[in-house]
């Protein structure tokens, strides 16, 4: 147990002390903020306004709450996964710089090392993403706060679930990486691509049907929608209370992916949770199996 504790501590310290790695992990949120400042903010605003019936007046606070909620949910949904990938690159760097060989000369079990990488990545990712979430809350408080205590708690639980998902996904992919070039390639692909395929950069409603149906097979989409539902639920509640027709509210929910459709069939929030939790469970099982098989192959010299 103490070995696991000290290896986890070592991994967390290594990530947080490597400024390059921390900066790389923050590239995606920074890209998102840049996109928001340049044009995404206007896209979001126009999307909401286009869903309102003719002559309907909406306060600036509600619009800002909607735009801010969409931005913050996108930021959190992407960060939990991309930060996890960067934090977990440590396991590949250990292979590249020989540290893994050094660790394996000791009697420590492979499973202890793998678990230490996993837990350290979860902790490092949570530290950064919870700070990001806190900053999002501050931002929302400034532009338009509509969150209840329950919403805040649900958002925090979403951060945990998405972090677990991002960590196990990165653990599986990183298991197959063994060079600095591969780290850079995967990091770049994840930073640039994940935001699109999970619906964080652009709502899925703006994609064509084929792309939309395809990304509905990816669990990250459901994670993004979960955060978005909890981040924007308060604003929608306020709109309903102010007498907005249900059709209008549902139209906006459709346009920002709070409502997801799997081949035209609506997906409830409960199902989104189930998809994420089952996916995390299955991926952890796959990670354990891959490690077991790869460990045996490596010892026999077949890889």
């Amino acid at each position, binding site marked *: 147990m103490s*070995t696991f504790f000290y290896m986890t501590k*070592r991994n967390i310290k290594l990530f947080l002390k490597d400024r390059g790695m921390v900066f790389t992990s923050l590239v995606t949120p920074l890209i998102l903020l840049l996109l928001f400042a340049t044009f995404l903010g206007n896209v979001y605003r126009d999307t909401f306004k286009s869903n309102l019936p003719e002559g309907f007046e909406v306060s600036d606070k509600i619009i800002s709450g909607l735009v801010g909620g969409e931005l913050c949910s996108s930021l959190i949904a992407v960060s939990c996964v991309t930060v996890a990938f960067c934090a977990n690159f440590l396991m590949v760097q250990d292979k590249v710089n020989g540290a893994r*060989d*050094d660790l394996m000369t*000791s*009697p420590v079990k492979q499973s202890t090392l793998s678990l230490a990488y996993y837990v350290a990545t979860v902790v490092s990712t949570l530290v950064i993403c919870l700070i990001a979430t806190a900053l999002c809350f501050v931002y929302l408080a400034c532009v338009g706060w509509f969150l209840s205590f329950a919403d805040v708690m649900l958002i925090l639980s979403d951060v945990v679930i998405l972090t677990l998902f991002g960590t196990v996904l990165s653990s599986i992919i990183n298991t197959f990486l063994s060079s600095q070039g591969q780290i850079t390639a995967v990091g770049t692909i994840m930073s640039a691509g994940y935001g699109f395929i999970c619906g964080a950069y652009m709502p899925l409603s703006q994609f064509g049907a084929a792309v939309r149906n395809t990304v509905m097979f990816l669990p990250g989409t459901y994670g993004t929608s979960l955060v978005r539902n909890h981040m924007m639920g308060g604003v929608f509640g306020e709109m309903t209370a102010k007498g907005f027709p249900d059709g209008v509210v549902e139209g906006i929910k459709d346009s920002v992916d709070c409502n997801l459709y799997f081949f035209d069939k609506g997906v409830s929030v409960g199902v989104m949770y189930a998809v994420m939790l089952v996916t995390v469970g299955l991926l952890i099982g796959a990670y354990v199996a891959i490690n077991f098989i790869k460990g045996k192959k490596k010892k026999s010299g077949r890889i």
Partner: protein
Amino acid sequence: MNSEKIIEINNLNKSFKDVHAVRDLSFSVRRGELFAFLGVNGAGKSTTISIMCGKLTKDGGTVIINGADADGAPAKIKNSLGVVFQSCALDKYLSVYDNLQSRAALYGITGDKFKARYKELSELLHFTDLSKRTLGKLSGGQRRRIDIARALVHKPEILILDEPTTGLDPQTRKLLWRVVSDLREQEGLTVFLTTHYMEEAADADYVVILDGGRKVAEGTPLELKNAYTHDYINVYGGDMGELSALGYPCREAGGAIRISVPDTAHAAALISEHRELFTDFEIFKGNMDDVFLTVTGKELSGGEGL
């Protein structure tokens, strides 16, 4: 040094697909010995060490280290071994203390036990003032001392030095060997060395030379020199024509004429028969480079001498 065998390897075999990396390799290492394991890249040294460390499984043969069989008690073997790699395998962003703390924890050494061991090692290897320094900011020599401390953190009985001086400047290499020599004296360590520097192998108690995965020669450096090299007479101020006429191979070397003779007896006889030709001379044995070249037909790519 005593006669007890601390490493016994018999008929070891290992293949990677079509490549037979280690073929029927057998050797033993005595407790307290400085053992040199030589071979060009691809000779099978690293594969053998990886099998000894439990990183690779073997295809056949037996590996017994400190009384434990590699098949049955890999953890016991790993506790007996400390490895210094060719390049530093520690974490450059962590402090010296944090590095050794995380590595010690791999062996269950934590808390006060670790603090006591850290104090011992920092005094033994003279790095008490480096505890808080980040590893990446240390000089090559300082980092090498921390590498050795990491290898010794769990008090192993065998220290494996895998090409430990490759790429180091002469001063750091001297420092490393002084530290290793002190450790052998003070802690009775057995040292298992692979190196490209033949001068280092010349100081070993026993040498095994590998080529193509097979053992091609073994013995003490003196035995190997006697078996595989000639003696040489360096003659200063001599005449090449007259010396060549003696019937032995001659060549110019470093301002002298070097005559190659089968052994010291031949050298002594030659000099006493032709005193007029040998006014300023020296007799010396071939070195480990010559041994290696004779045995394998290859030269090791080492650097300048210590």
